């Protein structure tokens, strides 16, 4: 038994690491700049011209706090041309653009020069003093803004045709407007550097793979185990902050998980209570009318999508046109629900019961059909075994044979399903909670997907993965305890 446990544990840990890696890759792939989203959530974002140096400073601190200036992983595989300091650049779009440029020309030094030339041009353009008569001012500001916009877009594009167009546009602006004369030198330097990108190109360098080692101070490591400072890492429950309202993810999940967990437990219990007798009875009465009819009904139920059942229930029993026995959505009526009630309070339960009946029916029926089928097949398998025949030959009553000898062994496969409760309480009920507007984890996931709240999505993904692996481990070990043949394999 000990050996089996150790064996399972040894395969368990790499799987956890693999799940964390997948989750991390997804969070890296998320198409948004986390700093922009987070500062928007915190309300520090002003309109474009209000962006003062103060808000920039906040963003920089945020970037530092998120560890975005660190390398992504312990090692990186890239090519000889790429730079090992690129990860220090703050802006996400400029970073990807520089990567693409380096890939095109193969000469990091030239790309770096070009980038710095552009930055210098941008800086000088921003500090340009405009003193002019009143009537020209509007036009001049417009031209100036357009020039700034062209620089900004040059910083984020790597397509040759677009760069050429932008450069000619800027050149025309420079020629037409005298007040931009101060920038002539900087602009010429940019064009010069841009030409060098193709003349000094060393594309062969991109064909030589290199491996760089960055050490422990990288984004993945900090994300997973924290940096011993302000980040505590995923393994200590720090999933970061939500893009929507800036709240810590862990607290948000903790607030929402109770109702989903309660729903999952109640409905799985009901499913067990209903499906085990049905499974036993149809296995016992195999090939009779009852068994065949029940099999067909279960089969049809099994093919019925849960969202269809949920909507049909709403249509039938929570609809003023037909029967409005139950409320349509939510889990409580804010006008009559007393917030001082704790959730196990009798009045609270009584208040909430009508809200929960339809969701529980929807939740239950899917696992009900599944469990009954498993139960029936397992039972048929057991009933034909020798020891059942022996029990009958001993003269035991039919009830005793079925309920005492056969049932215990046929329950084994069904017990393992219980391990799925925890992960399914987090992620298994998205559709049902959306239909009935139950403010649990499922609805939270749905909202976070609609609002592109990536930290939440990644946190749920990681948690569900971890919990399922733990569930597998526990159920395997339980199974080995109950059925000793497994650990002696």
């Amino acid at each position, binding site marked *: 038994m000990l050996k089996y446990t150790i064996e399972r544990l040894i395969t368990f840990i790499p*799987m956890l690491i693999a799940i964390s890696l997948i989750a991390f890759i997804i969070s890296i792939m998320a198409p948004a700049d986390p700093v922009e989203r987070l500062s928007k959530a915190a309300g520090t974002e002003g309109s474009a011209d209000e962006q003062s140096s103060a808000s920039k400073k906040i963003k920089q601190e945020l970037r530092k706090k998120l560890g975005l200036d660190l390398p992504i992983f312990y090692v990186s595989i890239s090519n000889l041309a790429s730079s090992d300091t690129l990860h220090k650049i703050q802006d996400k779009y400029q970073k990807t653009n520089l990567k693409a440029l380096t*890939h095109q020309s193969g000469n990091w030094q030239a790309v770096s020069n070009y980038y710095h030339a552009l930055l210098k041009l941008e800086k000088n353009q921003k500090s340009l003093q405009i003193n002019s008569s009143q009537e020209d001012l509007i036009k001049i500001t417009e031209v100036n803004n357009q020039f700034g916009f062209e620089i900004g877009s040059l910083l984020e594009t790597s397509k040759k045709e677009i760069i050429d167009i932008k450069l000619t546009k800027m050149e025309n602006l420079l020629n037409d407007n005298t007040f931009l004369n101060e920038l002539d030198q900087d602009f010429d330097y940019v064009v010069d550097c841009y030409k060098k990108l193709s003349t000094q190109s060393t594309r062969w360098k991109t064909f030589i*793979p290199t491996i760089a080692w960055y050490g422990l101070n990288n984004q993945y490591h900090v994300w997973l185990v924290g940096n011993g400072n302000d980040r505590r890492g995923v393994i200590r429950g720090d999933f970061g902050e939500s893009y929507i309202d800036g709240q810590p993810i862990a607290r948000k999940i903790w607030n929402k998980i109770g109702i989903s967990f309660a729903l999952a437990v109640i409905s799985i219990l009901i499913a067990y209570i209903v499906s085990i007798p049905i499974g036993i009875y149809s296995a016992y009465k195999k090939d009779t009318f009852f068994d065949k009819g029940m099999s067909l009904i279960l*089969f049809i139920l099994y093919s019925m999508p849960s*969202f269809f059942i949920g*909507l049909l229930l709403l*249509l039938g029993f929570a609809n003023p*046109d037909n029967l409005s026995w139950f409320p349509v959505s939510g889990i409580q009526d804010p006008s009559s629900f007393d917030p001082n009630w704790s959730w196990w309070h009798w009045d609270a339960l009584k208040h909430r019961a009508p809200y929960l009946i339809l969701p529980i029916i929807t939740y239950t029926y899917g696992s009900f059909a599944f469990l009954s089928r498993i139960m029936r097949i397992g039972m048929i398998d057991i009933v034909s075994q020798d020891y059942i025949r022996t029990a009958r030959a001993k003269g035991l009553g039919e009830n005793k044979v079925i309920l005492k000898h056969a049932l215990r062994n046929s329950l084994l496969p069904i017990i393992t399903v219980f391990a799925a409760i925890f992960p399914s309480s987090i992620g298994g009920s998205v559709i049902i909670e959306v239909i009935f507007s139950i403010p649990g984890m499922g609805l939270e996931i749905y909202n976070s997907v609609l609002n592109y709240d990536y930290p939440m999505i990644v946190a749920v*993904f990681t948690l569900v*993965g971890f919990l399922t692996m733990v569930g597998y481990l526990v159920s395997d070990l339980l199974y080995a305890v109950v059925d000793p043949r497994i650990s002696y394999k």
Partner: protein
Amino acid sequence: MNILIIISFLLFIYCLYEDGLLFTKKSSQKQKKVIKENNEKQKFSFSKYAWNQFKKNKIALISLYLLMALVLIASFAPYIANDKPLYAKYEGNKLYPAFAGTNIGWILNLGDETRTDSIFDSQGDFVQILQYDITDWRQLNLEDVIWAPIVYSPKSMDRYNRDYVSPTGKQRYKNPSGEITEIPKRFRHRLGTDGIGRDLASGLIHGTRISLLVGLVSMGIASIIGIILGALAGFFGDNKLKMPRIKYYFSLLGIFLGLFYGFGQRKYVIADGFSNGFGSGSIQILLSILVLISILIVCRYISKLIMIGKLKEDVTVPVDTFVSRGIELLNSIPRLILIITITSVVERSLWIVMVIIGLTGWTRIARFTRAEFLRIRSLEFVQASEALGYSSRRTIFKHALPNSLAPVFVSIAFGIASAILIEAGLSFLGIGVPTDIVTWGSLLNLGRQNIEAWWLIIFPGMAIFITITIYNMIAEASRDALDPRLKS
């Protein structure tokens, strides 16, 4: 859609043939049957036996015919539900508006959707210019017209029947003389409309295409991955695949270099390809895979040249462990959560959704293939082919695989049902599938938003339910027919 049409025809003709409905005019049904039975006595064929077993299950047979009907509906959707007439005679000109821009129209050279005709009457005087896709054909004074069975396209909005018009309720219509009247029977929305006046029946007909396509494409991807990985894992196990150490190392190196040159080096080319469209992107991906394979082959060839001394010793490759761990990893995350998470970071596109469903759905197929190979690899005919010195590739694909496809086929059929279910669930939630595509799930979502519109819940829900049931029935019946041991 060409593929769907061809497959549907072939299947249909095959079933008619098998049922004796086709080519039976010469001899009577009975004689034919006798001849058939005689032939069967002489030669036993497994596929014929399985087909006979399958035919005994009446419900499954009905399901198969229903499936074929669905495939036909999907193939001919543009001619079943279209707001343009199939044939129209206007000022003496014969027009075929519904065929423009479709497959048949392409064969007959009828132009594309935006075809524009200048119409002249019989005296040769210019009447007007008709651009097919924006003309309101109902408002023209057509001399002779054949409408499609359902006279609405899935995206065409009927502005006189907005705001959830019930199939039994009052519907309005603007006749060619410009008056708003009670709708003629021909133009009724038979299954009602949604909030912006789109016809539900037409949406259902066109949604059939998407559902069937999702099942076909995603399970195609899943079964290729699942069968190959499962076969390798089951056939080689943990200690049967032996290769010289140097070859093993060079294969790993080849995979690394192949990934580097095929995908790392070409990632901007691939991204460019995908920005030009899904087709050119897939071609770039295929090219990358080609690069990977050729580098792998080159590396393995080089390794043969330096096979000396200790490097020649055999090492075992734990194929089964790799594949089993991969399956366990994919299974450890509930499929819906996995798909929702991935779709949230990639672009919204139906094709990407199909690919993701396929990439996450191969585990079941791989497990079945693996189990079947574990059983088969100790059987005599596999050992005979090994004893004859055939290569592993030949043994796996030519001898073992054809004999282990039965349970795999069943799990593919179940997989199609669950792929359709997942796609419906995703579009029901409005995740992943673009909002402008009308699918059964998105129609059901409209019903969720307005619970009074019962027709938007009942009809799409029944469509999903029936399709899934059909696939499950066929899968269950073919399991019973192909492998009686699994019968429960």
